[in-house]
């Protein structure tokens, strides 16, 4: 029975459906204390003093610390894409000298219950000399911390990516098309806020941090370094995780403070973020401005592209270093040939919540910019937007396609893809010509309806490696141990399917252990759509090793050769029929010689590049500026689909988030840097009312040659091009090409498009 390619129901759902999940807030330890963070009420200012005496006098308060009390803790370092020049811009676990955003941690209170902790936090007085905040990433850089770092400006880095002869391209151009677009500030907002419980076991001298997510092994090492803990003294444990989206599980000040407090106080310390804190303190994302200039010929073929863009990084550079800007610069060219390219990406600090990666980082934004540009090229040359895309696509025959630039330390080499073919399939599915006729007829009757399409290349399967160990016990139960993490995306089911396929065992007999640093020595976590590619491949390799070992042992027991045997339904059987042995029995037989195990390590120096097409049909009510999405289709080539149902789930969920960023979600600040969208009353998440049925056209036309399964990642397909496709559809509905240049497309912005700018 084949296991790969089937839509198995998730094996991890039992406890979740029964209300027996173990999320961060579900973790408790006897005698635990509760931590509350005191946060800056102002956007930028010099700290003159932090008065804690009144709060400390409150009954039930165990400790209050400010930066002086944690002076030995270094700032939080970069997990990836760090540069030496970025080091001064790192965030301390408690603000030192300056506060740089509303929400910047200034002090922590540890108390006997969360109510007392919050009461006490209210009594801590931050004496801050307010300074004028920097709120515009495109404005001239300003001082980061005036007298502490003299001369240090709010532009930590400028990234440049280029190939080809851009000057020659512009000299040869029939037309130059320029564009400026902006993507608003929004982020991933998991249903579960962040949380941590630190428990110190004095007997074993081990500190355990519950509530870990995404990258437990990396965070174990980073926290150990910060706290000076030797090997084996810190363990990170991942429970259920209520959504990750890139922002959850990065190392934040609160994680380090919980660990430090549990060690110092020798009592368990728990911190559960509230929703307001989450919107102020967890990574923001997006918020980029792009200025593009394209040199094109008469057919709309892009001869050269110049890009300057600005990333509003917020107050500090966090764990992601330059990741978002780096990916933006590398992925902006997308599925198109573009023979000459020069991009300049400015990382700019402002006095807003620090930013990091959010599902399809640098691609949601750059796809919006690039696809808006393609639409504008079509308009200026009086060509169809679809035709301009056809003209520019990289041909299937050109694969693998080396872009000639790097991202995340790896060369951008598109491993496989049939871009045009996928677009044609999407258009066929929609009966494109007929659809356009129908929409034109409706427009003739006065309805504002329109269709838009957007194409993109994704990246997935970031290395460097992952390790998997598989063990069969005496009852024939299989345990897969991996260092990747689960943020709720179905890791257990997918890894079990790959194992079941390889060793021929029912999926119900497989357990998957993930996110436990005491179970496996390395792990690279769950991000960059990497788990199925990296851990999935490692599971395949480990399963094959285990299968070979089982067959060899069984051959000895059955007095035959391994090639006369096969694995099926948890048994080793003779190919010719007759004798058979359960796997559990073989495991018992091998008990004294290491057991029935298999180990697999998958190393990847290059990423895989899946690709897709989004198509949107919208209706605009010009009297209310309301937007109705009448139809939404995502076409996506995942290389090979291990579990199509889970991939569709990923795509639909991603599309919902993309709609949020395109139409609803925005962190708005006033002129003093006060956040105006700090609750769900003002930060508007899409609900089932706003998200239409998402149609998915899942293809496996271009398997990856880079891994034994041929798989590519699926996590970011659904979100990538939503802003771009909806913008195009709204333009078409209004019959105003190029009208939409900014996300989110709010009713007030649409009103301005329809009625002209404010007087």
């Amino acid at each position, binding site marked *: 029975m084949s296991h790969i390619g089937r839509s198995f129901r998730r094996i991890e759902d039992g406890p979740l459906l029964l209300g027996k999940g173990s999320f961060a807030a579900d973790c408790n330890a006897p005698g635990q204390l509760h931590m509350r963070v005191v946060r800056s009420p102002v956007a930028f200012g010099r700290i003159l003093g932090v008065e804690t005496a009144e709060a400390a006098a409150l009954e039930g308060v165990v400790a209050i610390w400010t930066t002086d009390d944690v002076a030995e803790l270094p700032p939080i370092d970069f997990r990836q894409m760090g540069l030496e020049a970025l080091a001064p811009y790192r965030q301390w676990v408690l603000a030192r000298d300056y506060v740089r955003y509303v929400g910047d941690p200034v002090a922590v209170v540890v108390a006997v219950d*969360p*109510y007392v902790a919050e009461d006490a936090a209210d009594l801590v007085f931050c004496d801050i000399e307010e300074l004028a905040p920097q709120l515009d990433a495109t404005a001239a850089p300003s001082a980061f911390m005036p007298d502490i770092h003299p001369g240090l400006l709010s532009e930590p880095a400028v990234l440049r990516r280029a190939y080809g002869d851009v000057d020659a391209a512009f000299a040869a151009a029939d037309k130059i098309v320029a564009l400026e677009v902006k993507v608003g500030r929004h982020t991933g907002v998991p249903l579960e806020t962040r949380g941590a419980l630190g428990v110190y076991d004095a007997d074993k001298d081990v500190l355990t941090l519950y509530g870990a997510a995404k990258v437990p092994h990396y965070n174990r090492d980073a926290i150990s370094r910060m706290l000076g803990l030797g090997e084996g003294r810190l363990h990170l444990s991942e429970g259920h995780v209520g959504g990750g989206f890139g922002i959850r599980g990065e190392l934040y000040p609160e994680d380090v403070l919980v660990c430090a407090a549990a060690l110092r106080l020798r009592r368990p310390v728990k911190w559960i973020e509230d*929703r307001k804190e989450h919107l102020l303190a967890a990574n923001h994302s997006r918020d980029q401005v792009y200025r593009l200039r394209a040199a094109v010929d008469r057919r709309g073929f892009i001869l050269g592209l110049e890009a300057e863009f600005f990333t509003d990084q917020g107050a500090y550079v966090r764990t992601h270093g330059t990741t978002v800007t780096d990916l933006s610069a590398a992925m902006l060219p997308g599925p198109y040939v573009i023979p000459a390219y020069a991009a300049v990406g400015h990382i700019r600090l402002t006095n807003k919540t620090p930013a990091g990666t959010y599902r399809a980082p640098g691609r949601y934004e750059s796809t919006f910019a690039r696809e808006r540009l393609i639409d504008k090229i079509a308009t200026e040359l009086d060509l169809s937007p679809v035709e301009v895309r056809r003209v520019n696509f990289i041909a299937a025959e050109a694969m693998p396609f080396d872009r000639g630039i790097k991202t995340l330390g790896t060369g951008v080499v598109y491993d496989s893809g049939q871009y045009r073919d996928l677009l044609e399939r999407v258009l066929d599915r929609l009966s494109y010509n007929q659809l356009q006729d129908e929409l034109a007829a409706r427009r003739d009757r006065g309805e504002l309806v329109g269709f838009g399409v957007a194409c993109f290349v994704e990246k997935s399967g970031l290395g460097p490696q992952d390790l998997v160990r598989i063990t069969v016990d005496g009852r024939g139960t299989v345990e897969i141990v991996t260092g990747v993490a689960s943020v709720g995306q179905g890791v257990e089911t997918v890894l079990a399917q790959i194992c079941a396929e390889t060793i021929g065992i029912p999926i119900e007999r497989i357990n998957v252990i993930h996110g436990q640093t005491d179970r496996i020595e390395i792990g690279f976590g769950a991000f960059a759509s990497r788990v199925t590619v990296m851990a999935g491949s490692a599971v395949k390799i480990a399963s094959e090793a285990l299968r070979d070992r089982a067959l060899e042992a069984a051959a000895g027991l059955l007095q035959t050769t391994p090639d006369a045997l096969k694995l099926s339904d948890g048994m080793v059987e003779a190919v010719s029929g007759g004798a058979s042995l359960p796997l559990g029995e073989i495991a018992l037989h091998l008990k004294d010689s290491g057991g029935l195990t298999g180990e697999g390590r998958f190393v990847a120096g290059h990423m895989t590049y899946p690709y897709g097409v989004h198509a949107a049909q919208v209706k605009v009510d010009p009297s*209310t*500026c309301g937007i109705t999405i009448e139809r939404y289709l995502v076409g996506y080539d995942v290389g090979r689909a291990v579990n199509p149902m889970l991939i569709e789930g990923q795509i639909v969920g991603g599309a919902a988030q993309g709609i949020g960023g395109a139409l609803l979600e925005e962190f708005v600040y006033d002129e003093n840097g006060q956040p105006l969208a700090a609750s769900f009353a003002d930060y508007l998440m899409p*609900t089932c009312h706003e998200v239409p049925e998402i149609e998915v056209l899942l293809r496996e036309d271009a398997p990856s040659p880079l891994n034994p399964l041929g798989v590519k990642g699926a996590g970011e397909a659904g979100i990538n091009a939503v802003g771009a496709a909806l913008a195009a559809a709204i333009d078409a509905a209004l019959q105003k090409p190029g009208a939409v240049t900014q996300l989110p497309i709010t009713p*007030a912005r649409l009103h301005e498009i329809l*009625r002209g700018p404010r007087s």
Partner: protein
Amino acid sequence: MKPAAFDYFRPASLSDALALLAKYKDDCKILAGGQSLVPAMNFRLARPAILIDINDIAELDYVHADDRGLHIGALTRHAAFHRRVVDGPLGALFSAVARHIAHYPIRQRGTFAGSLAHADPASEWCLLATTLDATVVAKSARGERAIAIGDFFNGTFSTDLEPDELLAEVHLPPMGQGWRTGFYEFSRRAGDFALGMALAALRIEAGVVREARLGVGGVSDRAIRLRKLEERLVGGAASQEMIDTIAREAWASVSPIGDIHATPEYRRDLVATAVKRALTEAAA
């Protein structure tokens, strides 16, 4: 998001509740549905020293109609209006408006009277009460008084209630079979507060408008009844031309506020649209 400490009372009778109010006055808050108060307390925007929970007071849990109109007790939930609480156009209007209020679970707890006492300018019930001549019955240990809705709202989150008074009942005059109503609201998401809304009621006889009620909400610090436009409507036909005129005049008569969800210019246009659509529905 843990509230500051408070004392909690759960009186079983109205007189006990009023005695507590008389004793604690400004230090206390009434808890009915809690759908606005409790989040405000969790954000520590509201820090009442004392909560008086009226949910055990059975004598406040009623909605009934008689020849004087509709009487809504302080504990009547939004969800009570999902089904028509009175025959005729009034019950139908309440039912239609209720579905715009937040989401189903919130409507099971939040109360009609609580919405009025909270006085959010984007509240649907505040618009309905303002437009349809509601009377608020305030009770205290000192006695009882009736407050005309036009005198009740003082501005955003501010009413004419005295610190020792409980909003015990809201009364709406009857609406005979000759009335027809319309309601239109636009919000950014289903269930959100209105960016703009309008409510219209017309009594039309032989093609002529004999009586009219028209109000708009979500545009200033309280719902606005457009009495001059009501007068314009009376005596003529509710024609498309008349509706367009009224919508234009509504546009001219309001000076909307701006916030992160809507500019004043957008809101003003939205009000005109809402008026037009509410009137069109009522005239249909």
